[in-house]
């Protein structure tokens, strides 16, 4: 069986006008990107739009691709920029409307087969964007801290601080949510339900 063509080689083909190669890259990455956006927005419709937007950008700016560095890092850098634009737009709409945009989290949630998981998703949703992105890229997308630093245009130390504090804040938010919902706080370490 022949070796699969590398991401970089495919992207170089796209750069040279062989656009079908982008289809292969889409097949390889659309689910990961969708998952990334979903974790940041909690919206399937917006996540699908953002994935489309990322691949439109790649097509539009394909001649800018240099082939330096890791392709996935480059791709998620674009994804992060698109999400930042979306986030900025949402914030602007909030200010314009003088009210928070209601987020249909429950309507659009994955199957709530676990209270703990729902709680974790709600807590993640309330985390500030930088910490949330660092956690999602690290734990869910499996990037190394130095790769996340490239994606987020910051230092590796800053990424570690965001992951560290993000986890701490996540626990605090979850405790608060449990109190609101009248649930007994279960220390994650002693939680035997999982």
């Amino acid at each position, binding site marked *: 069986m022949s070796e699969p063509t590398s991401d970089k080689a495919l992207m170089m083909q796209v750069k040279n006008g062989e*656009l079908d190669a982008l289809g292969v890259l889409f097949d390889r990455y659309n689910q990961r990107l969708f998952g990334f956006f979903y974790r940041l927005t909690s919206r399937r419709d917006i996540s699908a739009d953002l994935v489309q937007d990322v691949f439109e950008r790649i*097509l539009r700016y394909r001649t800018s691709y240099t082939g330096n560095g890791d392709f996935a890092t480059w791709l998620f850098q674009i994804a992060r920029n698109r999400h930042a634009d979306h986030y900025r737009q949402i914030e602007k709409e909030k200010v314009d409307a003088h009210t928070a945009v209601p987020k249909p989290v429950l309507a659009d949630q994955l199957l709530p087969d676990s209270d703990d998981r729902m709680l974790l998703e709600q807590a993640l949703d309330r985390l500030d964007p930088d910490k949330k992105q660092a956690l999602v890229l690290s734990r869910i997308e499996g990037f190394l801290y130095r790769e996340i630093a490239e994606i987020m245009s910051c230092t590796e130390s800053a990424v570690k*601080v965001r992951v560290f504090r993000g986890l701490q804040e996540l626990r605090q938010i979850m405790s608060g949510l449990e109190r609101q919902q009248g649930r007994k706080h279960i220390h994650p370490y002693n939680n035997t339900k999982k």
Partner: protein
Amino acid sequence: MMPNEKHIDLITGYLQGTLSDAQRQKFDRLVRSGEIDSTEVRAMEMQFKQLGDLPSPEPDPAMHERFQSMLQREKEALPGRIAKQQQEKDAQPVQPAGHKRDKNMSQPAPPGLQQEGEKQGLKQQQREKKGHTTRIRHLQTAAAIAAVFLAGLLLGSLYPGRGTHEQQIQQIASEVHDLREMMMISLLDETSAAERLRAVNISMDIPSPQDRVIQALIETLHFDPSVNVRVAAVDALVHHGSHPTVRKELVRAISRQPSPIVQVALADAMITLQEPRAAREFQKLLEQEEMEEPVRDKIEHTLLALL
């Protein structure tokens, strides 16, 4: 008790499983000694694990279809676009001699930028003018050098005992160099933007400028009231890109320049210099709400070229 942030490196490395043997030994030692609270770290570890256990949502098939339609449209449009680009390339006039920056640009400007007609027109006029003034300037400089050279030869023949012929030539060249630098710096103090533009252009003909010239150009880049002069300063500084402070100051200017024209010039400069430190500054710029769409496109384009 929250884990001590002093050990963030070790704890985050432990969570991701990337500690080296030595780091792992140190981590274990600190846990045993109680300096790192093991209960808290294990709580974080559990939280980290739970995050990874969150299910991955499946996109709808419609997303795939939408992508395929977009790709198909692009493929259909591609031959026409290539032909158009070729036509534009064939119709492009020969660049003037003084036109230095564009030959180094790795990419064309995004289409949106071309709509900045008036601004771009001004920039083009400035470049054309620069080409013309460059030729005049070369003639003036050549005349000055010839005059000083002849005077030097005359003095040398009158006083033959004072050093070798080569030393005299070196001395004259050094004086011409100094004169040119001083003239350039004094012109930068002129109230006329055209004179300051001329000063910036002179700096490009100075092969190894002293720090005072670089410093004057940097101040011009940061503080000159004229956008055209600041754009010219960007070009001149790129010309002296091997100087240690130039790249740092160009990067610093990205977030300080209010003019979109200068921002675009800086974007071109960063592509020419392939300066990765600029990426973070452009990222910050993109996070600003108030930015014209063509400039945003250009900055994103640059950012991708720098990664």
